[in-house]
């Protein structure tokens, strides 16, 4: 039951993280210039109408009171209503989250499914054409920003070949390009990480011992090398998944996917505090849980990791 105690401890530690993140964010948003009520109602609204809306949004109260009220409501799963849109933050988030998770998960599947085998193959065939080719791909993917790569892919696959839709979520084919673009950087990380890790492992004494005992090359790689080389890669997968959720902000914008990324961008632009706060809280929790799961998986993959300590 060590893992359960460990998981509970980590979840408890999430609380101060969420409090710190939300408080800093709340202060920054509150200090930023701009009159939200006037923006919502327009320049011609009367001062009374502006004051009324400010009162409804609670903006006439001191900052600390507003923050405490918000967090108390959030504990009751009431994340409020958008100030600049006509929607409830929690229901909107729950409507959008599946798109973000789907694109992020597909991106990760693409990156790990292609990256780990390619990295391991590069390590096994070090200095071969495959190795040089994969290194070139890694450098290429690292140096191309998502917004540029996304546009280039849209031009080639959507405009020139007319194979895919440019944007939207109308069908399954809308979910081909976005994960590839979102996962491109992670793919490069996976190739590099798994190649390096595999190279380290195959130089270990126990691998040499296995070979000396007459184990076949296939057995050595599958039973002795891969599992051990995957430990840092699993950690990297967790970090990358958290990263893809953040990176989804750009990708969702390019491909017009109605996920939490586009919601967050719009909310920040319009100082929509309930939406920004709610989204950040959810993302913090999701990333925290992902990191926890990664640590637990690491403990399973590598028995030397003692969760109790």
């Amino acid at each position, binding site marked *: 039951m060590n893992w359960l105690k460990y998981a509970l401890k980590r979840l408890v530690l999430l609380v101060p993280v969420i409090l710190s993140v939300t408080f800093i964010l709340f202060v920054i948003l509150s200090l930023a210039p*701009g009159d939200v009520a006037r*923006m919502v109602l327009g320049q011609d609204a009367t001062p009374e109408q502006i004051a009324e809306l400010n009162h409804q949004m609670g903006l006439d109260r001191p900052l600390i009171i507003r923050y405490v009220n918000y967090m108390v409501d959030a504990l009751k799963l009431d994340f409020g209503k958008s100030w600049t*849109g006509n929607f409830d933050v929690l229901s909107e988030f729950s409507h959008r989250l599946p798109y973000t998770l789907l694109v992020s998960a597909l991106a990760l599947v693409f990156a790990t499914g292609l990256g780990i085998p390619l990295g391991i193959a590069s390590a096994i065939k070090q200095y071969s054409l495959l190795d040089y080719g994969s290194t070139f791909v890694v450098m290429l993917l690292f140096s191309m920003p998502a917004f540029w790569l996304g546009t280039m892919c849209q031009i080639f696959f959507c405009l020139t070949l007319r194979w895919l839709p440019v944007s939207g979520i109308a069908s399954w084919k809308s979910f081909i390009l976005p994960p590839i673009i979102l996962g491109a950087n992670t793919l490069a990380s996976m190739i590099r990480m798994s190649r390096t890790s595999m190279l380290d492992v195959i130089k270990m004494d126990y691998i040499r011992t296995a070979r000396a005992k007459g184990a076949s090359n296939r057995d050595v790689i599958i039973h002795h090398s891969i599992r051990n080389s995957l430990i840092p890669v699993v950690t990297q997968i967790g970090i990358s998944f958290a990263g893809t959720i953040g990176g989804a902000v750009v990708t969702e914008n390019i491909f017009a996917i109605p996920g939490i990324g586009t919601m967050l961008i719009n909310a920040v632009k319009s100082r929509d505090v309930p939406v920004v706060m709610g989204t950040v809280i959810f993302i913090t929790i999701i990333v925290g849980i992902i990191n926890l799961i990664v640590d637990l998986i690491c403990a399973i993959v590598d028995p030397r990791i003692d969760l109790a300590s």
Partner: protein
Amino acid sequence: MKKLVLAMLALLMVLLPLAAQATQEAAAVKDSATLVVAGNPYRFFALSPKGCGGDDNLVLSNVYDCLLCLEADGTLSPALAESYELSADGLTYTFHLRKGVKFSNGAEMTAEDVKFTFDKGAKGPLGQALFINFDHCTIIDAYTVEIGLVSPFAAFPYGVASRLGGICCKAYWDQVGDEGYMANPIGTGAYKLVEYVNGDHVKLEANADHWRGAPAIKTITIALVADVNTQILGLQNGDYDVMRNPSIEMCGRFDTMKGIKTSIGNSTARVTVNLNAWSGIGKDLNFRKAVQAAINKDDINKAVNSGAATILKVDICPMYGGYPDHIQGVAYDVAAAKAYLAKSSYNGEPFVITCTAGTTYETVAKVMQAQLIEIGIKCEVEAVDNMTYEERGKKRNFDARVVDEASSLIDADSIATQFTPSRFDQSVWYPRAAEIYAMAQKGRALQGKERTDLYGTIAQILLDEAYTIPLYNGINTVAFNENLNGVQAHCLGYYNFRFWSWK
């Protein structure tokens, strides 16, 4: 391992052509059209306490009909009112309603709905801006209403044709209230709202029982896409049929492409520069006049609009009611600008032009910066985000500010916006603000030449005092599939979908 890598690549190669096949099959059927926009329309009930804005107009203008209709070129035509009369004293409008008009829920539109719309609209956040001088609405009979004003206002019919004048169903509102109406709007318009997915799309369906006849296109989808590149590629690809407001430069490129046409029209906005005249160097009239004479509007127009916009002589658009055609603007004159600067108390301090970042107004500011540096003003550009920009404007915290001043009423009355005392703290009033505002108030009651002359006098004061520098008339653009008929840039930036049809 190699096999696994090859398998992944093979899977990709299989998926992509499959997707291609599906895309080409989907393109075959066409009784719908998709408009792509960057903004997010979400307020579908203009009478709500939350008001509504420009993007909402895309939906409102098609779901609701007004008593009068604002055409793309800014003229008015009859809509739910077959005709109207204005009393001799200019205080009472009598509207004769069209009979047999149905709301999309089947209820008949009557005078009671008109009274409800005007009474509620006048009390809301847009009432003061769009129902100017409104006093009361009286039902004469089921198909006749009288709207009384507290004092005459020549541009009142434009308010009637504005987004706030979309006639709403009173009986339905009694049932569902503001929130219910916002979620499921009911109007007499050519289209009905059938689906709204926040941040993704709005779907409208043709109202087969519309009093003008059923629209040609059954379904209009408004796709919400923030990225302009994606909008452009989607239009070229055929994912979208109409793109709202591409840049002028992009319009030029679209015109050379097969299958895409563009339409460019004047908007109701005027792009001007407001100068600070209440503090710092801006208090010096000679300095303001130096800035005024140093601005080459043609260069700005070329840089921003490829020369397509109409240069403004005064701070009033030519399409506005009350436009004083007889007033001449201030000519670009570098020698005069230098002479004014020499006479001023300018000591080389920075002069900052504030604008919104990443917009064409940043380009305006940068061209102006070069022109002002040329006469010896140490000019800087401060490009800020939209909220900061609005805040600075409200507090009048700027040396100069590039402004896009739109007018829903399409009337010279809009010139008074910067001089409305209640909008600003007294410490940042323009020195002659009260005088200008009083004149504009008087102008509301006048008609014909008398009115034009008065707005001419106001415009001349603004030029003489160099409070604002009018640059150019805003433009609206639209790019669309060449097989789509009836698409036209509207002066208020929305579209009447009922005109659209496929060839």
